[in-house]
């Protein structure tokens, strides 16, 4: 586990130097398994029974249940959770991602689900590698449309079968994926805004260096 190698954070994180990679970035969330006195809700067991092999782990932390699912089977899992009577997750509250660069499957894509019938929540998590496409759940929850677009925009995770996978918050022609950990907090974007001439010169210099 990542938490096993604690390292002092080196004083308060200097925000201005945000793009300097911190020493030994964490390689993944802890995803602690549920403690012995907690039994998983029935719908998780139901999911494990109906779709054997799809669930690779169940985690519990500060009252939240998380199901970790194989990336290839996310659409099946989503359909099951939407339909199954004991689950009935009719609302997709959120789709988001986290970036853990040292890991091979660097992205966690997280679906926060809620059921208005049973009033319970669950998070579904899949691990996705860079350039690996996962299935879109837009047909299960139309709400996922924009949320998946935002994940695509910010992290570059592609969703197969998404009806309209475009950038949503950043301009159409933007390069790079801002929420990735290796994307600098400050950079050419601001320089471009404040001083376009210098930015052009800088880019020319970079291009020439590339050619040489």
């Amino acid at each position, binding site marked *: 586990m990542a938490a096993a190698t604690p390292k002092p954070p080196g004083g308060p994180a200097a925000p201005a130097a945000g793009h300097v990679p911190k020493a030994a970035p964490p390689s993944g969330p802890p995803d602690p398994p549920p403690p012995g006195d907690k039994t998983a809700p029935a719908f998780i067991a139901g999911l494990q029974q109906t779709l054997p092999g799809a669930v690779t782990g169940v985690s519990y932390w500060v009252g939240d249940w998380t199901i970790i699912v194989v990336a290839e089977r996310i659409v099946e899992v989503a359909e099951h959770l939407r339909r199954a009577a004991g689950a009935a997750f009719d609302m997709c*509250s959120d789709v988001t991602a986290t970036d853990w660069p040292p890991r091979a499957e660097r992205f966690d894509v997280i679906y926060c689900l809620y059921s208005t019938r049973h009033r319970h929540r669950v998070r579904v998590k899949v691990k996705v590698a860079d350039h690996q496409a996962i299935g879109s759940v837009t047909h299960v*929850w139309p709400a996922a449309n924009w949320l998946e677009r935002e994940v695509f925009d910010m992290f570059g995770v592609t969703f197969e079968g998404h009806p309209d996978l475009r950038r949503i918050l950043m301009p159409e022609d933007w390069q790079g994926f801002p929420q990735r950990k290796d994307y600098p907090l400050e950079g050419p974007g601001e320089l471009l805004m404040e001083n376009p001439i210098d930015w052009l010169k800088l880019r020319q210099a970079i291009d020439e260096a590339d050619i040489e």
Partner: protein
Amino acid sequence: MFDTDELVLNMGPQHPSTHGVLRVVLRLDGEKVVDADVVIGYLHRGIEKLSENRSWTQIILLTDRMDYVAAATSNVGYCETVEKLMQLEVPRRARYVRTILCELQRIASHCLWVGTHAMDIGAMTVFLYAFRERELILDLFEDFCGARLTYNSMRIGGLPLDIPPGWDKKVLEFCRIMDSKLDEYEALLTHNRIWLERTRGIGVIDGEDAAGLGLCGPALRGSGIARDVRKDEPYAAYDELEFDIPLGAAGDTYDRYLVRMEEFRQSLRIIRQATEGIPEGPIVGKVPRLIKPAAGETYHAIESPKGELGFFIVSDGKSTNPYRFRVRPPSFCNLQGLRRLVRGHLVADVVALIGSLDIVLGEVDR
């Protein structure tokens, strides 16, 4: 020779009724909307990215800048998420004051909504009436924390300051004033025939579709789904207070209007109970000097005036800033429903529907 063209109308990002810098590209057949492409991102400031590079306490003031007409709600939502992640106990007094602030903020936000919504449909007097009352709430907030818009009014584990002496009296006085003013708004709108014609049957969406589309808050309750985070997953002091969840039936603009108008009254009811029942005691719990939650992640939602405001926060347990900070903005998810709602309606209904969804672009784009 007689083929007809669709007219592409670019509404926004500079348009009086898109409530900020929203852009809607409408494809029109005459005045009828065939399709709409909602373009956002003009107010994107990268608050999520920025927050991952700020300390846990510094983020509170970034949350002010999201839903800037209901900043206190965002403060509460963020602080509660961190408290959940750290398993901190918040004193009862602080939870009561948080409840009062949240509900005052809900009234302020709904005031802005009813004003602009009515203005979009052409009734301009309600706009000024509603702003008159919003001013009273801003005065209350000024008394509490010194600011009128971006309050920075919360701390992890409690409140920055206790309420000033006599503040609770002023809050009760405000409730008394607001009661009669609500009747004034309703007299101008609720039974007005033009208002009924403009809102009834406009943007109808049934409960199942609304939930699937991710609509939340009054937009979802207008379709008859009893989903309110305050009841379902109580936070602050809501489990100790009595209030009802108003529901719509038809799921049209008029029902969403009625739901919000009733929410005004329920908020006043909550404020009255909470103000009269504020317990004595400390205002901050036992908070470590350096806020550094253990490694882990959590999602916590509260009911903002717009709907379910969720925070998904990942801590790596090592640094003094969150590893991942994600906001689930209610306006963003509600705005997504716009395309589904406007299809087949007229241009004039588009502005009515934007108003009926009650969006704040600061929150949509973050």
